[in-house]
C-alpha cells in the first residue's frame, strides 16, 4: 500500500494540473487499484472525480470516454456495445470481477500504459486518440510510445468507423492478467492487428497489416503469411506467466482465428 500525506478533490483541471506540478510526488488518483499494489510515497493525491469525467458521450465523429469512467461502465454502456463491433466492451469483461471493474478507471489504465492491459490492446486496433490537459490531442499510438511526462489524461476519443473486429485473449485462469491479448479489426482502411501482453505493451503489426491490406482476397495461405509476419516483426518475451515460445504459439493461433472470423 502507498502512503499519502494529503488528499485534494479538485474543482477544475487547471487546479489539478497546477497541483500536479507543485511536487514531484504529487499524483493523479485513478481507481488506485494498481497504485495500492506498490509502496510509493505520495505527497498529494489528486482526485478528479468531481469534474464530470465519468461520462461516455457520442458526437458526430467520435465516441468520447471521460478518464474517470469505470471499466464496468465501458462494459455495460450501450454505446460501447453498439460501436466498434463491441470489442472495447468485450476487452474488459475478464478483468477480475464486477467490483474491481467498478473501481478501475480507463484513465488509470491507459495513462499507466500497462503491458498486460486488455483495453489498451483493443483501443489500439481502433482509430483512438487521447486528450491530455497540457499535451493536447494525440493518437493513442503516439501517446504510448512517448516517455512519461506528467500530464492529465482527460478523455479517450475513438473515431467512429464501420468495422468488424474481434478481441481474444489467453489467460491461465479466468480472471487473471492475459498471457497474450489480440485485437484485430477490419475497416474501410483495411486490417489492424494489435497484440498486447507479449508481455510488453500493445503494439500494431505494421508489416502484417500492409501485407493484408494490399491483397484483394484473403485465403488460407495469406493468413498463414500474415501470422508469420506478426511473429517476426513484434517482440515477444518471457515472464513468470509464459515463455516467449508459448506466447508466439498463442499469437499464431489467436491471430489466425481472428482473421478467419473477419475474412468471411
Amino acid at each position, binding site marked *: 500500500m502507498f502512503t499519502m500525506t494529503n488528499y485534494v478533490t479538485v474543482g477544475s483541471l487547471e487546479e489539478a494540473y497546477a497541483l500536479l506540478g507543485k511536487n514531484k510526488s504529487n499524483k493523479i*488518483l485513478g481507481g488506485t*487499484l494498481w497504485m*495500492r499494489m506498490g509502496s510509493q510515497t505520495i505527497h498529494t493525491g489528486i482526485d478528479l472525480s468531481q469534474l464530470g469525467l465519468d461520462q461516455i458521450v457520442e458526437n458526430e465523429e467520435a465516441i468520447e470516454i471521460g478518464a474517470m469512467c469505470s471499466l464496468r461502465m465501458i462494459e455495460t454502456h450501450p454505446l460501447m456495445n453498439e460501436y466498434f463491433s463491441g470489442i472495447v466492451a468485450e476487452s474488459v469483461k475478464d478483468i477480475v470481477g464486477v*467490483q474491481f471493474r467498478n473501481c478501475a478507471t480507463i484513465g488509470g489504465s491507459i495513462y499507466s500504459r500497462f503491458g498486460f492491459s486488455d483495453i489498451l490492446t483493443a483501443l489500439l486496433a481502433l482509430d483512438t486518440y487521447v486528450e491530455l490537459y497540457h499535451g493536447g490531442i494525440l493518437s493513442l499510438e503516439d501517446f504510448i510510445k512517448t516517455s512519461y511526462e506528467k500530464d492529465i489524461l482527460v478523455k479517450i476519443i475513438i473515431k467512429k468507423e464501420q468495422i468488424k473486429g474481434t478481441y481474444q485473449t489467453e489467460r491461465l485462469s479466468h480472471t487473471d492478467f492475459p498471457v497474450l491479448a489480440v485485437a484485430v479489426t477490419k475497416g474501410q482502411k483495411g486490417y489492424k492487428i494489435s497484440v498486447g501482453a507479449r508481455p510488453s505493451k500493445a503494439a500494431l503489426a505494421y508489416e502484417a497489416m500492409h501485407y493484408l491490406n494490399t491483397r484483394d482476397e484473403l485465403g488460407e495461405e495469406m493468413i498463414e503469411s500474415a501470422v508469420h509476419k506478426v511473429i517476426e516483426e513484434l517482440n515477444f518475451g518471457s515472464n513468470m506467466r509464459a515463455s516467449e515460445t508459448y506466447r508466439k504459439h498463442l499469437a499464431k493461433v489467436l491471430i489466425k482465428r481472428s482473421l478467419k472470423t473477419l475474412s468471411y
Partner: protein
Amino acid sequence: MKIKVWVNGKLVQDDIAPDMTLFNYLRDKGYKSVKCGCDTSNCGLCTVWVEEKAVLSCSVLAMRVDGKHVTTLEGLQDEAEAFGMMLASEGAEQCGYCSPGLIMNVLRMKRELKNPTDEEIKAYLSGNLCRCTGYMGQLRAIKKYMSQNGEA
C-alpha cells in the same frame, strides 16, 4: 482530513488519514463483516456498496466516499439472512470466511440482472473467490435466490 459519509443510512463524520482505505475505515467503525482476504484486489471478500455499486473496499480510499452512501452487510441483515439460509441449506459453505463478500455481490446482482443465465451469474460473481468449495452449492443457492420474485 474531514469526512462525512452515510454508512447504512447513518450519517457519520470523522477526521481520518488521507491514505486510509475504506476497508480500514469501516473495520475501525465496527463493521466487522467487511474482511480482507487477499490484499491484492482479487478475492471480493471486502465488497461493500458505494452509491449502489459493489466495490472493493480494500482498494478504495475512504476519502473517495466523502459525501456518499456506503452499504455493508450489516445494513442488509434481512436479505443477507434470507440468502444465507439458502446457502446453508444447500450445504454451500465450509469455513464461511468468504460469505460476506459473496452475499454483498449476490444481493447487488439480484438488483442488476433479471433472469440471468448460469454463464451470466458466473461472469458477475467471478471476482468472488472461495478456497474451500467448488462453487456448486453456492450456484444452486444463488439460482434459487435469483428465481424468487420481487425485489430482494
